[in-house]
């Protein structure tokens, strides 16, 4: 009797614990791979690495293909790929970093500074020249990945931001297509004209006051974040000037209203109104052109940003790159993987320009030779930017520390003005104070 009781209790225990662990369902961030593998150190040969990136299914497919190429070349290293959509990617990464289970290699964007400050990135300098071959990589890109004297980041693609123009819409409106060298006054006028000519529910441009803010500041000779001095690189008045321009342009007509920008954000290519022929211009990184063009029959081209006092403020910059995890058990293999990822011609062919133009000269020549129509537009644009920066150089910009909180604040500021909740000067005042506070909290 007693025995039966105990057995029953045990059985119950099993059921309940099993039910509990399945039922809470809050473990979205957890992953089932606590160990980094490669524990069979006796042989000392077989090593398993994990790599994580963000993006869509297409990117996942080609990245996995590239990893297969790596595995066939280095049969002793197995690479397990993981990916997440860009919205949840960094939350996932942060959680893994906090619990010490982050992948050996992961992608970072402009927020690399945040992770560098938290000292979770692997210093790759010891491997340069051995496992890690950077001889063909652009100097500026190597410098970009060198933060506070350590090589922490290897750019995996470069791009230049610019204005994507729906040429078909301009032809429909009977207007000349914008060209490089225009200024913001012309930009505002063009936006308003095309909107009034094409009428009802069609706008000239998305509101770029947030996405283009660092560029707008650079055009005034300022910057978002001065990494050398470790301070913000702008004053409240600079931000006010920029937001005021967008408020005036919006009032004049021709800028997508906030309500529409919320439901169809410009960063989401599948919802972009440029594709549906509702908005004629938007600010994009050049590697996004192919994705946009793939969704529409209209002809899209790229034009440089309108000029400010000091020029266009746009540089050829890293779009995203790879970093190693400081706690990785196999730093050498990490370096080998990174080196392969940027140098191997087959990888370059597989990945194409999905993350931006390749960062090594050899691979760029390789891809340019077999570029399709859209890619030719991108190459033509990036070379225009490169030659422009020869006469008007601009520093590469880093995002300020606390970037995710900052960008949330910036977005709120734009919509506070857009929905008429605050006057421009009041909103910018709150924005500047908030930015200072975030900046100081994350130093």
């Amino acid at each position, binding site marked *: 009797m007693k025995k039966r009781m*105990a057995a029953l209790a045990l059985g119950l225990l099993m059921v309940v614990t099993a039910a509990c662990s399945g039922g809470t369902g809050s473990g979205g961030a957890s992953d089932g791979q606590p160990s980094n593998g490669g524990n069979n150190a006796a042989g000392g040969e077989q090593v398993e690495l994990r790599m994580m990136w963000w993006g869509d299914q297409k990117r996942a497919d080609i990245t996995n293909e590239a990893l297969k190429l790596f595995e066939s070349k280095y049969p002793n290293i197995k690479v397990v790929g993981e990916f997440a959509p860009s919205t949840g990617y960094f939350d996932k990464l942060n959680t893994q970093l906090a619990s010490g289970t982050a992948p050996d290699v992961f992608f970072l964007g402009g927020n690399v500074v945040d992770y560098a400050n938290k000292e979770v990135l692997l210093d790759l300098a010891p491997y340069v020249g051995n496992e890690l071959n950077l001889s063909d990589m652009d100097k500026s890109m190597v410098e970009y990945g060198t933060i506070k004297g350590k090589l922490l980041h290897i750019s995996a693609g470069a791009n230049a931001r610019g204005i994507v123009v729906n040429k078909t819409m301009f032809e429909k409106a009977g207007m000349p297509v914008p060209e490089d060298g225009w200024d913001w006054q012309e930009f505002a006028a063009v936006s308003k004209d095309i909107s009034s000519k094409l009428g009802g529910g069609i706008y000239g441009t998305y509101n770029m006051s947030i996405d283009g803010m660092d560029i707008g500041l650079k055009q005034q000779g300022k910057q978002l974040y001065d990494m050398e001095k470790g301070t913000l690189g702008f004053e409240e008045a600079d931000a006010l000037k920029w937001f005021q321009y967008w408020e005036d342009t919006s009032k004049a007509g021709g800028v997508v209203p906030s*309500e*529409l920008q919320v439901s169809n954000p410009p960063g989401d290519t599948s919802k972009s109104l440029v594709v549906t022929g509702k908005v004629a211009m938007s600010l994009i990184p050049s590697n996004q052109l192919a994705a946009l063009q793939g969704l529409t029959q209209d002809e899209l081209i790229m034009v440089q940003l309108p000029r400010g006092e000091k020029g266009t403020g746009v540089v050829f910059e890293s779009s995203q790159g790879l970093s190693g995890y400081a706690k990785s058990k196999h730093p050498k293999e990490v370096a080998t993987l990174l080196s392969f990822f940027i140098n191997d011609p087959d990888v370059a062919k597989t990945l194409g320009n999905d993350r931006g133009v390749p960062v090594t000269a050899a691979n760029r020549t390789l891809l340019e030779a077999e570029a399709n129509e859209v890619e030719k537009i991108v190459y033509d644009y990036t070379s225009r930017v490169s030659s422009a920066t020869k006469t008007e150089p601009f520093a590469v910009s880093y995002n300020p520390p606390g970037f995710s909180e900052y960008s949330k604040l910036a*977005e*709120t500021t734009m919509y*506070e003005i857009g929905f008429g*909740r605050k006057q421009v000067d009041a909103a910018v005042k709150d924005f500047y104070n908030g930015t200072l506070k975030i900046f100081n909290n994350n130093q």
Partner: protein
Amino acid sequence: MKSSRKALGSQHNLTAYTFLLPWLIGFFCLTLGPMLGSLYLSLTKYNLLTPPEWIGFANYMEIFKEDDTFRNSLWLTIKYVFISVPLRLAFALLVAMVLNKGIRGLGIYRTVYYIPSLLGGSVAIAIVWRQIFDGNGLVNQFLSWFGIQGPSWISHPDYIVHTIITLSVWQFGSAMVIFLAGLKQVPADLYEAAQVDGAGKARQFFRITLPMLSPVIFFNLVMSIINSFQAFTPAFVIGDGRGGPLDATMFYTLYLYMKGFSFFDMGYASALAWIMLLIIGIFTGIIFLTSKYWVFYGDSKEGR
């Protein structure tokens, strides 16, 4: 067989505790442990990656003194609770009373109406909701038949919270099933007696149904309030996942989540969590304290 009374008692206790064991293990390891951990973290500055640093009550001070987002999100959450909970309960009661008329196929109706409760908290339904209330979604297409041009419900800060409230009301199923069980318990002779005395339907509802149901209402109210304070998924998915547009979906739990996992401020997030616990505790406490004035237990002495 010789066993003293005491031994028998302890043996009974042992059996009871054996059965309770799974819950106790879960409670101590998965609930109480992390809770105490977060209490400690709430008194520190902890950016997830470097060891926590003791700062005393600084997080709490900042929350109460300087944090506008905290105030807004708390206010938004309270508004959400106070609108959605009564609506949901009223709706649940209404449907339960209709179903209690003894219609055929009751089991099917009960199941169908219960399904939203199971699905409502899921991401998939929240995505469907997005589509329904989008600028050219179902709702606006329906409105356009009558010549009304609806706004984009999910992208305007004034309307989006109502979308989320609608989703919450739609999950009336579990409350309804409990109401239905409660209604079945109300003795039919009370209604017969009332009818004989000439009481109308409305009077019967207020004088018989509601008082007899009050324990069930009490239970549903407490559960709904606790759940609604913790609403996360609808705000996360129907909004942009970052509280937007304009913090109109910045529910308390979402703010807490963002502070902890996006903004690297787990200490602050823990402090927010403890404040939430206190607030829920206070609201639940108020309901319990006032319950003796409005909850009627048919078997209690005063009742008869």
